[in-house]
């Protein structure tokens, strides 16, 4: 039996190749898939978030750690689905219509996946209709919107209205973030949560789902 602490270390250091290899071997040895996620990967990403918050890690290290976890999760997710295990919540995440910037969205995706959330990454330039479809067809519990531009911020309000019109607003919590976004703007459009940082997004998601 291999030392599973190495999986924690591989995610923490962004070593995708090792994370995948250790996961493959552990699964072959009969280790519970959920144990790999909950006892090794999530704590590793939690530590990544802590290091990011206190300026020990920066964006490259965070993205590489997320990639390492994602590669390992791809092996585990089908097994979790087959066993009926549920994610903490399912998040439909995207940069709003008209906005093609993705780094903020990618950072939030990394942190949410590390926090045990299933992330449906809708990409950039996501229309209100695509967010609505993600709620209706994929069962998202959280809609998370990102915008970098003041000119695209209003698409967040339009999406809120689309969720309302489609009759699904009550089914989801809406989180927003991005450089021009403020708590005041989040309050103005009726979003359930706002975070100034990617790492903070996990805490906000946890809070709104409590």
């Amino acid at each position, binding site marked *: 039996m291999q030392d599973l602490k190495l999986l924690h270390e591989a995610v923490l250091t962004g070593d995708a190749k090792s994370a995948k290899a250790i996961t493959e071997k552990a699964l072959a040895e009969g280790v519970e898939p959920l144990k790999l996620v909950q006892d090794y990967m999530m704590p590793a990403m939690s530590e990544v978030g802590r290091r990011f918050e206190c300026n020990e890690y920066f964006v490259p290290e965070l993205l590489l750690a997320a990639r390492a976890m994602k590669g390992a999760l791809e092996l585990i997710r089908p097994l979790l689905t087959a066993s009926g295990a549920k994610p903490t919540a399912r998040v439909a995440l995207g940069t709003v219509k008209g906005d*093609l910037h993705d780094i903020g969205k990618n950072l939030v995706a990394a942190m949410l996946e590390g926090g045990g959330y299933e992330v449906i990454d809708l990409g950039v330039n996501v229309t209100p209709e695509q967010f609505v479809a993600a709620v209706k067809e994929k069962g998202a519990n959280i809609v998370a919107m990102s915008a970098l531009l*003041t000119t695209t911020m209003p698409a967040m309000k339009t999406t809120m209205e689309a969720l309302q019109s489609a009759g699904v607003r009550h089914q989801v919590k809406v989180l927003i973030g991005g450089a*021009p976004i403020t708590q005041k*703007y989040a309050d103005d459009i009726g979003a359930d949560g706002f975070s100034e940082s990617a790492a903070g997004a996990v805490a906000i998601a946890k809070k709104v789902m409590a």
Partner: protein
Amino acid sequence: MARNCFNRFVLASTRPVAMPIAVYPGLALTGAKVCDVVTNPQAQFDAQVALHDRYRTPFVLSAMDLSAEAEAFGCTLHLSETEIPTVTGRLVASLEQAQKLSVPQPGDKRTAVYLETVRRLRRLPEKPLVFGGCIGPFSLAARLVGVSEAMEMTVTEPDLMHLLLEKCTAFLTAYLRAFRQAGADGVVMAEPAAGLLSPRSLSQLSSAYIKSIGTAMADGHFAIILHNCAAKVLHLPAMLETGLHSFHFGAPMDLVAALGKVPADVVVCGNLDPSGVFVQSSPAEITARVMELMKATAARRNFVLSSGCDVPPATPLDNLDAFYLALKIMPAPRR
């Protein structure tokens, strides 16, 4: 002795100095659209001159558009009437593509718009200091490979990144020379992506290349004002390695701490939030924020009040009015 014209002006001023990075708000006065400003030098000139006339600014700028240089390299863009263009997709995804990438010439594609705008601004009879706008080498390289991808490639593909950085530096050095030939007194060089790196990576992947550009341009007059709206205090020593003397920071920078760490002849500009303050606040709130920041920086002579990044087109003119009005009632900087 200040090393460039911008610092000389700031350090000699008997009044507090402001230089928000603002061209697009002038559209409210000219009636043009963002797409006009980024494609037509006359529209860009008109927007800047409209603000210059309204506020009697000692500086004029060409617009901040961090897609023009990437487009000159061959990147595709998303264009719209109301937004500054955005780079789409990835031009370079492998070392082989990076090796084959040609370095464009200043004036290729829309870089000609910015050079021509500077040429026209130079002819203003009041002779304000004229600054062009350009991207920094790391931020340009990041646009060529994709910004998210670039972050990972700083660790996984350092050779590719350094090769791109050499090509970006070659282009930017030539572009800055072209700005100088067009009559610019300097440039505001935007290097935001480097602020997402560790200080060590910023030093290796940004500052080292900017230092080479700065050395090539040093003539005792031409100013390179290095803008980094993502940098924090912990990045400051690595940014000072550029050897530059003028810096412009965004909201994450603790300006008071920064002013305490730089030599007295280094000018620090910043950092009212462009969206949260300039767009979303009321004029009264702007007045309060200006006074708060000026008080916090103790009217240091080497401080220039500014926006933390490009002031968005949607900024109400009442808010810019309040910004400049508040500055007028501030006391003289400390000697």
